[in-house]
């Protein structure tokens, strides 16, 4: 299932992150993609906030993976540097683990990701305005429906 949504402010970003947080489960995989500065890390910040993580979440670009221990762990990854490689077996333990994996530039390691996942493609339309294409397969289809029903823009 695939839907289109729009974001016009940080409040919208937070509202969407909140709906997704309420659908999380152990082993959840969220792929985020969109140009530099499109707001992938900002979105993840709100997701972490609503998951109850109190530590400041900042960019994982340098270490590729940052682990936030929580009632449901958050594995925040930025795999941009794996563009020409396509996989990194070190990440397997986390992607197939019991936390929530948020993977920025996930398409670069698509071959090592399960088919069932939530995907959000962010397109920059203006300073704060973004168009989102949200896709989900398998058990994530229901989540896309829930986002469609509960996130209004």
């Amino acid at each position: 299932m695939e839907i289109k949504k729009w974001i016009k402010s940080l409040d919208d970003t937070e509202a969407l992150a909140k709906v997704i947080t309420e659908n999380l489960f152990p082993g959840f995989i969220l792929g985020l993609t969109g140009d530099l500065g499109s707001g992938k890390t900002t979105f993840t910040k709100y997701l972490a906030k609503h998951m109850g993580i109190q530590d400041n979440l900042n960019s994982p670009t340098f270490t590729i993976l940052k682990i936030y221990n929580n009632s449901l762990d958050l594995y925040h990854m930025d795999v941009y540097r794996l563009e020409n490689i396509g996989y990194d077996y070190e990440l397997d333990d986390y992607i197939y683990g019991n936390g929530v994996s948020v993977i920025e530039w996930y398409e670069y390691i698509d071959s090592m990701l399960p088919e069932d996942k939530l995907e959000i493609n962010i397109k920059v339309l203006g300073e704060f305005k973004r168009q989102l294409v949200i896709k989900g397969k398998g058990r994530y289809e229901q989540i896309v429906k829930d986002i469609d029903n509960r996130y209004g823009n």
Partner: protein
Amino acid sequence: MYVLGVETSCDETSVSVTLDGKVVLSNVVLSQIDIHKEYGGVVPEIASREHIKGITVVFDQAIKDANLEYEDIDLIAVTEGPGLIGSLLIGVNAAKVVSLNYNIPIIGVHHISGHIYASHIENDMQFPLIALVVSGGHTELILMKEHFSFEKLGETQDDAVGEAYDKVARVLGLPYPGGPVVDKLARSGKAEYHFPRPMIDSKDFNFSFSGLKSHVINLNHNMKQRNEEINIENFCASFQDAVTDVLVQKTIEAKNQYNVKQILVAGGVAANSGLRKKMKESITDIPVYFPNMKYCTDNAAMISIAGYHKYQKTKKVDDLMLNGSSRLNLVEEN
């Protein structure tokens, strides 16, 4: 006290021996930079494999260079985090093997405490002091009131400053690592483009470089669309000017508020010539120390020195349950 330091948090395999938290007897650094260059950054799995290939040789060389035997070592200090998890584990496990084999106590060290203690190699610390930690993964202002006591005054809310350099370089089509390249171009340019100074008036010690990054990307994009020629030197100079303005301004505010005796600048971005110049020009009432270039980038000497001071402060060591951690809070090290 002879301390063996081990550092493998990113793409440098390094082992060092220091004496009494001050004198560097050996500092062997095996850099992987040429291997990662073609990927535009450090690739975790490749880094781990390279660490495995090099680590035993680097250990033995560090002992040999120091004219010592393993039996002479009193303490092993190893970076436990933050960093690439797989890479950290190789250093930690190699250190544990030596610890177990020669019955030498082991202590885990925070990577950033190492960068801060790099300054202590050449200039004695005087407290209280402010450390500005700037690297590819960190942007933090730390207050130290005594040895091995860290109070985080503020940090980046999004991108680290070194990361902002890398991303701007990427947008401009410049090679990785972006920091040194942008710095070099900036030196022959004029800061003619206007870039924002994010959070410069925020009244706290936090930083944000994500908005500046977006501004740079948008300007570059818009100019290209209008077929305007971008003066790349001036573009880099303007970016560097904005970044260093914020870093220097916040450091001055921290200096005034806490009435410190020294400023230390630590981490890879401490090698940036624009930051060095502006910091030295703007702060003249107390000393501003930058580590020697060879101790700015990752190395085990700084870990060894930091490990010595951590042990002196806490008088505690770790056991063989010591593990690597991708994120680690410096303040909890106290």
